[in-house]
């Protein structure tokens, strides 16, 4: 294997990427845009729950209850209404997601030690938000009830929960590390998938395979620049995540770099493989690249949606996607400070996946036209 030829190919690819505005946009702009979208725009945290209140009691106790909701910071009081039709109007028009109705005998019941029912209507069309809102309502109500009730109710068990690794449950901390896997998968695979197909379309591939170049030399030469770009994107994503979004990086950064490189190698090889298989069509190649990297990385890697919540058959399927292992690694290193002792299994899987794809690509690259 001649290093000279590999160098010539890598250099040529680099020049071509540099001179192609589309490649540059995908390589540099796409990751940044994705980071900003996911970092700022997408959040699972529920705030500003618009609420209307129908206070039939209008006593100091009822007002205190309403104040509890306001002060929690999660609910935004939009209006006070005085009939049920108005409640319907607000919920239907999306001006409010929650409606609290305090019955006229609320304070009387509270004072006489009888259970007082407060009716809470929640807009369930966004079930995620609805569930969380419901939880907040229950918690606030319970706390209020415990304060007001003269008869103290001693609980048999007093659960005190602490959330490890992400105590504020900031969804950003949970999204960004996994996002790095998505960015690298999609951007790198997309870029790389065009490389061989483009040469076939332009006719230069025929020229290339008429030279003594070996498939392994051709592939390594093509991999190198895209690996470098992917590496750069990874560093960028980590930097933005840590400095701009404040995602903690509790683990060893060297471990992060090493394991990311292994994943990157696999992803770039996969892109080249797609390019070889899709042979003469850049458009087909790019479509395959997006479908086979974006969908798994997005939906099946544990990036946004927990794998353990998925139906069993789907959980089994996720094992074939390298992105799954990488997301575990990323969350581990960023949030848990995990070391190699904990992540070696994932590391091995990534390495194996990369090696398989790489050798498959070499085998599939025939130096023949047919």
């Amino acid at each position, binding site marked *: 294997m001649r290093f000279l*030829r590999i160098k010539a190919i890598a250099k040529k690819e680099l*020049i*071509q990427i540099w001179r192609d505005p589309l490649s540059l946009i995908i390589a540099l702009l796409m990751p940044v845009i994705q980071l900003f979208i996911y970092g700022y725009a997408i959040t699972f945290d529920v705030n500003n729950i618009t609420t209307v209140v129908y206070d039939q009691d209008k006593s100091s106790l009822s007002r205190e209850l309403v104040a509890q909701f306001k002060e929690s910071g999660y609910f935004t009081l939009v209006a006070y209404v005085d009939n049920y039709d108005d409640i319907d109007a607000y919920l239907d028009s999306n001006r409010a997601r929650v409606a609290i109705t305090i019955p006229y005998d609320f304070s009387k019941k509270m004072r006489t030690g009888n259970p007082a029912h407060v009716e809470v209507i929640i807009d369930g069309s966004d079930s995620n938000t609805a569930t969380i809102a419901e939880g907040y309502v229950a918690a606030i109500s319970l706390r209020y009830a415990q304060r007001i009730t003269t008869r103290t109710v001693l609980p048999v068990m007093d659960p005190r929960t602490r959330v490890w690794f992400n105590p504020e449950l900031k969804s950003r901390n949970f999204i960004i590390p996994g996002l790095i896997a998505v960015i690298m998968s999609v951007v790198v695979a997309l870029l790389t998938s065009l490389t061989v197909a483009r040469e076939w379309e332009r*006719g230069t591939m025929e020229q290339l395979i008429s030279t*003594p170049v070996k498939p392994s030399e051709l592939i390594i030469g093509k991999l190198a620049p895209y690996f470098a770009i992917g590496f750069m994107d990874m560093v960028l994503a980590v930097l933005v995540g840590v400095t701009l979004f404040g995602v903690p990086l509790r683990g060893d950064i060297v471990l992060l770099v090493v394991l990311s490189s292994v994943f990157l190698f696999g992803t770039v090889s996969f892109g080249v493989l797609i390019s070889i298989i899709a042979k003469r069509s850049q458009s087909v190649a790019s479509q395959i690249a997006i479908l086979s990297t974006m969908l798994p990385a997005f939906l099946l890697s544990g990036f946004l949606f927990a794998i353990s919540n998925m139906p069993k058959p789907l959980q089994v399927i996720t094992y074939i996607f390298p992105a799954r292992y990488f997301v575990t690694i990323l969350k581990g290193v960023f949030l848990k400070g995990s070391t190699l002792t904990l992540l070696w299994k994932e590391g091995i899987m990534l390495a194996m996946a990369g090696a398989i794809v790489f050798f498959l690509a070499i085998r599939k690259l025939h*130096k023949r036209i047919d």
Partner: protein
Amino acid sequence: MNQTSAVKVEGLTRRFGDFVAVDGIDLDIGRGEIFGFLGPNGAGKSTTIKMLCGLLLPSIGKGSVGGHDIMTGSEEIKKNIGYMSQKFSLYDDLTVKENIRFFSGMYGVRREKRKERMEWTLEMAGLEEKRDVVVGDLPGGFKQRLALGCAILHEPPILFLDEPTSGVDPISRRNFWNLIYEMSGSGTTVFVTTHYMDEADYCHRLALIYRGKIIAEGTPMDLRERYMKRYVLEIGVERMVEALDILEKKGMDAAIFGSLLHVTVEDVKQGIADIRSTLESSDIQVDRIERIAPSLEDVFVTLIEVA
């Protein structure tokens, strides 16, 4: 290489499904020869050349190129040849210099020779002043010569050129053939495919290919003498298309060549008389009829009709 032939193949055949693109071709090309492969589009020229270069595996056939087997030694063949494909296959987004440097690397041109070969190629292609121009911006003639240069950076003993003069102006074509002569003179074997019949005369030997088969082979002179048992009359006439129609209806072998008609006849005197009487009785005036030397195109057209 012990053998005297640069390329020696027998029964070269290539099928694509049911379609037989190349049907049992035999070739024997000596070192330093300029061998032309002529035929219309779709005749099988490109397919043949790709098999010889190791780019396509023959369906059937045996032989060798540069001493290496065409069935099992494609990678070895590639080390000793230069190939210029039909589309000139240069990188349009790289500059002239970058292309040369790239192919130098690919063909393994030795470090010491690189600068020399770069300068030689630039001079040969007339691109010394344009070395930093992006190839996509170059006119066709320059691209053609640059592509040739890139194919011979490593000074291979055998060169395969697939329609190297397609779409290039006549002056550039002439210059290109001068280059080929120079190379043949220094011992390089050149295998060229073309559909321009007038380029046939530039070759030492040629083969005419039609529908995958070789229908004639020999030097340009051979082909004219051997295959043209008849004579060609050139006719200048006013209503050419009508005249063609009339002559064909009378069973004559006629074809349009530019603004004139060529008719192939067994006997010159009789032929002239027949043609004149036929056309004049249909009220078409004949400006002139004379015998001309058959061009290779005439040869080819005749052969195809026989095939």
